């Protein structure tokens, strides 16, 4: 193992790529309660569309990124129309089917290089670009979650029937969540394509989707801070141990099973960094959370 900035920078760019997808997945899984095993498919769409935009149409990077995101959003809207009504497991099975079919379709499209791959993509993803994109993404996502639309999504996660009863259009909000999360995944794919300079459908297998979902779970469902931590830890550490790359995935799998068995809410399930700061502040000032008087009376009687 050796450390130099070039190496670390490369890993950090990969962290950024994964973070983008994980943020999208976090919206879908952590805040809306829908599990997807097909987000590698959206990554793939974003990556390929933007790569073609950059290579064949000489578009500037930002425009290529937008094109990639729009393409993924359109596909998500189409797929979502048919699948978002499915209950529980069936939705996540449908997304699995979608992700795999995307890969197989691109395997056979000669325009996109087929299974041999698409080389020669301009390497425009630099470290500052990734930082800027990720910061914007985190801010936007936080704003969305805090708005009334975000609250509606959380309500759907908590109790679908009750959210309908308070006038939330469940299908519409699932669709919004799905489309936005596809856009985030696509931007992750765009960054990935322009970092590697080379694409192959094999990069976006089911395992990739699974890994991404696992990052969300590891970080903690329903927490943007958790997603950041999840993406960082689960990208950075395995990359550092690339020397033992054969054992990497074995440990990875075992860790997932272990987490689910011991702490399924993830590292920071439901909590944000701000909650943590508040908690520290309480510790320092020595102020405890006060039980409301209403409840105290009841408690003292017993």
């Amino acid at each position: 193992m050796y450390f130099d900035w070039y190496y670390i920078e490369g890993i950090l760019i990969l962290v950024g790529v994964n973070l983008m997808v994980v943020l999208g997945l976090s919206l879908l899984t952590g805040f809306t309660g829908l599990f997807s095993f097909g987000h590698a498919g959206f990554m793939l769409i974003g990556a390929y569309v933007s790569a073609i935009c950059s290579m064949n149409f000489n578009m500037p990077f930002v425009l290529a990124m937008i094109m990639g995101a729009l393409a993924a959003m359109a596909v998500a809207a189409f797929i979502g129309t048919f699948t978002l009504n499915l209950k529980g497991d069936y939705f996540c099975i449908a997304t699995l089917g979608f992700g795999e079919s995307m890969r197989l379709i691109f395997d056979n499209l000669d325009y996109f290089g087929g299974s041999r791959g698409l080389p020669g993509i301009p390497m425009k993803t630099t470290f500052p670009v990734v930082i800027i994109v990720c910061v914007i993404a985190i801010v936007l996502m936080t704003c969305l979650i805090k708005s009334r639309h975000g609250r509606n999504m959380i309500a759907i996660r908590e109790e679908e029937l009750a959210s309908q009863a308070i006038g939330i259009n469940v299908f519409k909000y699932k669709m919004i969540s799905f489309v936005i999360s596809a856009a985030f995944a696509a931007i992750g794919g765009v960054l990935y394509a322009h970092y590697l300079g080379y694409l192959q459908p094999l990069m976006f297998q089911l395992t990739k989707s699974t890994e991404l979902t696992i990052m969300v779970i590891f970080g903690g469902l329903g927490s943007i801070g958790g997603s950041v931590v999840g993406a960082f830890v689960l990208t950075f550490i395995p990359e550092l141990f690339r020397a033992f790359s054969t054992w990497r995935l074995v440990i990875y799998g075992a860790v997932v099973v272990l987490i689910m068995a011991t702490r399924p809410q993830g590292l920071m399930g439901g909590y944000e960094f701000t909650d943590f700061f508040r908690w520290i502040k309480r510790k320092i000032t020595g102020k405890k959370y006060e039980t409301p008087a209403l409840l105290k009376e009841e408690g003292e009687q017993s």
Partner: protein
Amino acid sequence: MTDVLKLDHVTKRFGGLTAVGDVSFTIKEGEIFGLIGPNGAGKTTIFNLITGVYTLTEGEISFYGDTLAVKDPYGDSFMDGLKRRFFFKALKPNQIAERGITRTFQNIRLFKKMTAFQNVYTACHRSATYGIFASFLPFLPKYRREERMLKEKTETLLKLMGLWEVRDMVSANLPYGMQRKLEIARALALDPKLLLLDEPAAGMNPEETIALMDLIREIRDKFQISVLVIEHHMDLIMGLCDRLYVLNFGKFLAEGRPEEVQNDPAVVEAYLGSPEEMKELGGVKDA
């Protein structure tokens, strides 16, 4: 007085089982209407029909003269299933809520991990109008104004229901009675015209039940709404409701003012059972 909700020969069958058979009643404006009957009589099914969770097998439901639900013309076959999927446009539960009917649930369905405040705050969403793109720009004046308004509304509702002190408690940790009240607060957040309460006093002690009666009346007067309530507590039903409808095994049994219903021999029999019937059923009436 105008008719608020009208059920016209409403029937719901699940396969061969008739859960609700030929039920008709009308709720007048400003009325507190009680729906009672033994367990399994189909009361909650009626709620689910009104709120669009289930589709009707027969009959019609209308709300302020507008049709709310009509019967589902398709059968159980595969092709009918497809046709239903593509052609049958029933109002969805959320559309019915938007029209002004909100409800509480028998087995409490709060947003469990949210605090009491967030539960009501979320439910107020229809009072704000900013769109999905505006939520990315939270510094806009419209956004700030509307969010502030939502918070004020939430505060009013929580104070009314006596939950303001526990606003920061996670709703799943609240005592049972408070959870039921919180559900009512959440239902009121949409400014309904008709409030459906499914066993609001279940799990409450007698004092709490009496307080709840006053509270429901207060809500009715303050918001000028009508209330349809399912309840088992006879004290609550008799003291609260203007009129009652009694169901037994999904069928009409009696209707009228509380004291009329109370003395109706059919109702007495359904609740206590005639001696012969007790033997016949082997005491499994509630199944």
